[in-house]
């Protein structure tokens, strides 16, 4: 007996007793709905805890409790024909996840988060397909044993968003992990292709309400995989904070769409929270670069920097080269030093030696502060995590707007692995691609040390930086970690 004929028999029987069709699969038990609501509230507390480091771990526990409630509620309210398989599946996945979480280096967090997003996306696709194949289990059958039209739209959209999240996150992962060039890959006519694909997905979703054929779901999935791929390949490496945040948002919307399909409040609340979270982070990142979200997503930024054209102007401008001893001497004489870390610090793994440097300076009575730009690194908060890993207390780490007024009273600004975020052209040069981006006013500090590998390269935006050539700037040309180690040696003497 096929599934559909079985279901039509069931539906006929149900009609006799005049009960809603949905009741076949699982009676709507108010306690179940309540449990999912509690899980959703726990997730709200989980995010709320992150408003301060002291409450954050408690928040994380709330998250775990919420997840446990959701999983246990689901298991005890369904006839579990396959509990052993389910437990094995959880054990396999949980084991892998736990080991990864233990072993991952903090500098690799951006690609880990991207990889995790892809899993949420793929899981959403699989759940969408499962709901299509076994709609009765999810209580989404309408009249006559077919999936109700509203559920079909939700299903189509959920699968599409999940698939975009999956393939987009895979590309973001490959770029962040350095397994694929971070340079933008520009296809001709990509905007037309993207829009056309998007319209096709929406059109198919609408058509899906009329025709419940399998090929429609399959084509939607494939098209969504393609568009996720196409969306991310033209976006350059340093725009990844926006991309990772955006994919974070998408993974939330995918969960919410599945929540709509399955009428599950825990999924809807969580999806909305995560969707909002990712959207806000994307907004903060875009604002910190003074760029529109659409211009970031359209991609191509930083494509010129690989040409090396920006490097040419540097030869005819005078600049001063400093040594580790110079830096050690000037900083030990200073009252206040502000350190501005960037992605280069993460690449060089210099956070630990940098903390040793601050310890040595503090012993000499120097006040040391860290200044973090919102887009420093490859994901929101990337620098803060690395500094926390190196045991830098969080109350010595400051946000852009909180510390920018202090540079005029600062003896030394110490720039390590950052570039565009200190470029004064953002304030003065209207033709600059980074014009309008909020930057650290390091030019107001009495002395600037700028660690950089060589004078040849320019920042991600491909623009020259006037800070290199200021009277009070000394360039420390070396690998960031080696240079700080030498400074530490000089400070210890």
């Amino acid at each position: 007996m096929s599934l559909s004929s079985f279901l039509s028999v069931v539906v006929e029987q149900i009609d006799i007793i005049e009960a809603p069709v949905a009741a076949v699969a699982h009676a709507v038990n108010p306690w179940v709905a309540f449990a999912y609501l509690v899980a959703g509230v726990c997730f709200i507390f989980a995010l709320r805890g992150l408003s301060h480091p002291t409450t954050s771990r408690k928040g994380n526990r709330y998250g775990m409790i919420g997840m446990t409630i959701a999983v246990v509620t689901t298991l005890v309210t369904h006839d579990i024909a396959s509990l052993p398989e389910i437990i094995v599946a959880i054990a396999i996945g949980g084991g892998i996840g736990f080991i990864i979480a233990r072993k991952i280096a903090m500098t690799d967090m951006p690609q880990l988060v991207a990889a995790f997003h892809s899993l949420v996306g793929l899981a959403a696709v699989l759940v969408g397909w499962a709901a299509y194949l076994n709609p009765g289990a999810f209580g989404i059958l309408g009249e006559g044993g077919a999936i109700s039209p509203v559920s079909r739209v939700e299903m189509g959209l959920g699968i599409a968003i999940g698939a975009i999240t999956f393939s987009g996150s895979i590309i973001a992962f490959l770029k962040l992990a350095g397994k694929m060039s971070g340079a933008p890959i520009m296809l001709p006519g990509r905007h037309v292709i993207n829009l056309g694909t998007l319209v096709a997905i929406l059109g198919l979703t609408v058509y899906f309400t009329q025709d419940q054929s399998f090929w429609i779901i399959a084509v939607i999935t494939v098209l969504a995989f393609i568009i996720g791929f196409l969306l991310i390949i033209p976006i350059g490496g340093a725009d990844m904070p926006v991309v990772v945040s955006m994919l974070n948002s998408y993974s939330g919307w995918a969960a919410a769409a599945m929540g709509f399909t399955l009428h599950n409040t825990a999924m809807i609340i969580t999806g909305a929270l995560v969707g909002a979270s990712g959207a806000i982070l994307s907004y903060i990142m875009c604002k910190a670069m003074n760029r529109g979200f659409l211009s970031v997503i359209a991609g191509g930024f930083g494509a010129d920097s690989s040409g090396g054209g920006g490097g040419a102007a540097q030869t005819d401008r005078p600049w001063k080269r400093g040594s580790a001893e110079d830096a050690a001497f000037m900083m030990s004489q200073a009252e206040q030093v502000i350190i501005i870390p960037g992605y280069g610090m993460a690449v060089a793994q210099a956070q630990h030696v940098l903390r040793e440097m601050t310890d040595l300076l503090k012993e000499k009575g120097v006040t040391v502060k860290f200044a973090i730009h919102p887009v420093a690194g490859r994901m929101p908060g990337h620098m803060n995590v690395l500094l926390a890993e190196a045991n830098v207390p969080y109350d010595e780490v400051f946000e852009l707007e909180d510390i920018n007024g202090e540079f005029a009273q600062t003896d030394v600004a110490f720039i390590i692995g950052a570039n565009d975020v200190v470029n004064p052209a953002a304030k003065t040069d209207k033709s600059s691609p980074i014009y309008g981006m909020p930057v650290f006013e390091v030019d107001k500090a009495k002395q600037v040390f700028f660690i950089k590998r060589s004078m040849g390269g320019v920042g991600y935006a491909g623009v020259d930086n006037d800070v290199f050539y200021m009277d009070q700037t000394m360039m420390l040309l070396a690998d960031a970690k080696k240079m700080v180690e030498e400074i530490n040696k000089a400070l210890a003497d």
Partner: protein
Amino acid sequence: MDFIAILSIFVLACFVGYYVVWSVTPALHTPLMAVTNAISSVIIVGALIAAAEAGSPAAKWLGLIGIVLASVNIFGGFAVTERMLAMYKKKERPAPKKEAN
């Protein structure tokens, strides 16, 4: 539940999310992404239903794979968030620090 009831929950949850996330300190934005990752895997609920209910072997297998993927995320996401949050420390008081040195 009818569509409007679900939609109401969704819209209100978006507003809650908006205000809660703005209150998150920027220093914790990376743990925020890790924990949102973990909680968005509540999608495991859908995978569990698919795997638990009889009716379609294909749906069951899709569900089981979904459970594996979501479990990686749940355990990995919460564990890595916990690991990160444990690193955020306030300035130590001078006394115990001298002993440590």
